């Protein structure tokens, strides 16, 4: 093998290594993003189920069950925030946690006084879906 052929081989190998790094890093980013999206979808399902369970007109308010569910939600959100590898995405999860806190406070106030209406439940779920759609849309 002459010097020119050896040089070409080195350049080819460097190029192949660079391409492999780019491809694997893209794959990792996609994998992480889809993992993050799955976490957000899981939080959305939890919050919608929470509203379905407690925003029921005429249902007797069970404070212990309500608090247990709120604690479960808090733990889920905190774990999701702690597990998010990209710190830039954490504020999105923090915003979603703020929405959950606000929903829980309002729902407790209304359900404990028997003042839940079908329209309240429906509008709360619309807001949850909207904020989660925006969260999935704004992720970098």
């Amino acid at each position, binding site marked *: 093998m002459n010097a020119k052929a050896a040089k070409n081989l080195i350049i080819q190998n460097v190029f192949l290594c660079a391409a492999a790094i780019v491809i694997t890093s893209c794959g990792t980013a996609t994998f992480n993003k889809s993992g993050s999206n799955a976490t957000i979808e899981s939080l959305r399902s939890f919050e919608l189920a929470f509203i379905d369970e407690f925003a029921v007109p005429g249902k007797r308010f069970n404070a212990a069950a309500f608090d247990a569910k709120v604690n479960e939600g808090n733990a889920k959100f905190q774990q999701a925030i702690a597990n998010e590898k990209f710190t830039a995405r954490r504020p999105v999860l923090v*915003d979603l946690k*703020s*929405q959950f806190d*606000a929903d829980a406070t*309002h729902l407790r*106030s*209304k359900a404990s006084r028997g*003042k839940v*209406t*079908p*329209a*309240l439940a429906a*509008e709360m779920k*619309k*807001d949850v879906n*909207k*904020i989660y759609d*925006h969260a999935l849309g*704004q992720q970098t």
Partner: protein
Amino acid sequence: MPSDNKRKRRKSSPKKSELDSALDQVGDESVAAAMKEFQDLLAQAKGDTAEQIRQNADELERRLVLLKNGEIDKEDFDFFVENQKRDLRVFIDSQPAQSQERAEKLTLKILEIAVTKVVPILIAMI
């Protein structure tokens, strides 16, 4: 021809919304002026090119009608307005500097007028 245009506009003008019909009943002149400003801003927002501005206007109108019909109360309405504001802040901050003022006018300002001027009128009508 101006007269033709007028006729055309009148022909194509959409049917009044439930909210417009309620707000048009306001007799007091100073209050009626505020309602007119609100209705104009809401109409502008509903026709805006930005989806989030249109969505905010539609949500606000729907919830004002729910409030007027007694399907939600003022506590619920205020709660939903706070949700809308929280969501809008991210949207407004993401707009280019020159568009932020307009976006704010067609979102946060409308919500503010709704809470301070429109809601008391609607509650008085219940």
